[in-house]
């Protein structure tokens, strides 16, 4: 009986008894680790974290309090699993991984479209990039939002917290302001035609970067970079500086 073993261990602290209890609940701990598993993390590592947490839980468990051992141990084990991910910097790694996946998807989709003569399905993409369909969908979504968000409201890095939008045109409605702003138009005209088209689509047609990428046949990353560079150049030009000089 595990309950009596738990009682015995609480009294004697005999390591042999503890081992028996741990063996008894190992399946439970592993089960939790599998259910809390995140992408790309080796299952054995998670099982080990859970097993160590289980040992801790056995040590701390007080049978006198009338709580079931599993009820007591689950939060400890889950907490350790979460700490494990946190220590490994998953909060940073996963978005980055998804961003990389997003970029990879763009390339893969292009290639697959040519091979298949049609746009690939998510299942096909997931298969080629060795990710789950959920990851692919999430990456698509993340890429979309991230790049959409990274446009007008991106900080310029100035101490006063102005954004690119503030810089591009000082007004509440950039599109409207910009279209009537002759000097902005003259700045736009200094840009190469491709960049001009991209900025036009972004700020005048209000298209997302991913739609622009599709339209002009570049990756979204590339479009994002071109927009950033163009805005920098325009800012310099607006301040009367030489667009080629590095006078930040």
């Amino acid at each position, binding site marked *: 009986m595990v309950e009596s073993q738990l009682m015995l261990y609480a009294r004697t602290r005999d390591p042999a008894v503890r081992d028996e209890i741990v063996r008894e609940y190992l399946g*439970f701990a592993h089960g*939790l680790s599998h*259910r809390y598993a995140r992408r790309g993390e080796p299952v054995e590592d998670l099982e080990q974290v859970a097993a160590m947490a289980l040992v801790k839980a056995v040590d701390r468990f007080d049978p006198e309090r009338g709580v079931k051992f*599993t*009820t007591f141990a689950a939060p400890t084990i*889950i907490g350790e699993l979460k700490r494990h991910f946190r220590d490994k910097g998953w909060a940073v790694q996963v978005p980055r991984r998804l961003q990389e996946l997003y970029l990879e998807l763009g390339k893969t989709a292009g290639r697959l479209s040519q091979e298949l003569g049609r746009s690939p399905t998510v299942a096909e993409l997931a298969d080629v990039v060795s990710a789950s*369909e959920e990851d692919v969908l*999430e990456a698509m979504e993340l890429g979309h939002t991230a790049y959409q968000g990274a446009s007008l409201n991106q900080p310029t890095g100035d101490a006063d917290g102005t954004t690119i939008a503030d810089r591009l045109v000082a007004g509440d409605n950039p599109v409207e302001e910009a279209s009537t702003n002759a000097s902005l138009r003259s700045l736009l005209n200094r840009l190469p035609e491709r960049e001009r088209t991209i900025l036009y689509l972004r700020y005048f047609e209000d298209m997302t970067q991913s739609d622009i990428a599709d339209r002009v046949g570049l990756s979204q990353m590339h479009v994002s970079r071109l927009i950033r560079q163009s805005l920098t150049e325009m800012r310099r030009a607006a301040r009367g500086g030489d667009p080629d000089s590095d006078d930040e």
Partner: protein
Amino acid sequence: MEDMTPDTDRVELVIPASAEYVVLARLTATGIASRIGMSYDDIEDLRVIAAEVCRLLIGDDNHATGTVAIAYSVNGTSLQIEAVGHTSPPAPEPADDDLSVLLLSALAEELDVVMHNGERRVRVVKRLSS
């Protein structure tokens, strides 16, 4: 969709009672969570929460037929997920050391599991951690 509280946003999703559709329950949960500014950790918790809620109603062996209706309600800084199973056979009543129940108890701030007679309902609330 009418709701009693004017500042509650509600999203409803009905999925076939099948493991393959659980991903939709997860994506919807995390999508909403991200909208209300939940942190990365909270969202990871929600992925697990949404999956475990469905698992309780669909059952582990994935043999049930029917649907699971999931309502997501956002109220300021908390997200409530209430799911009702309309399945045959009805999901078994979980033991109190059922893994799903333990996970949900650990990860969510509120948990109700109502699984008797004809009723199969799970309600959880996850709050934005400060």
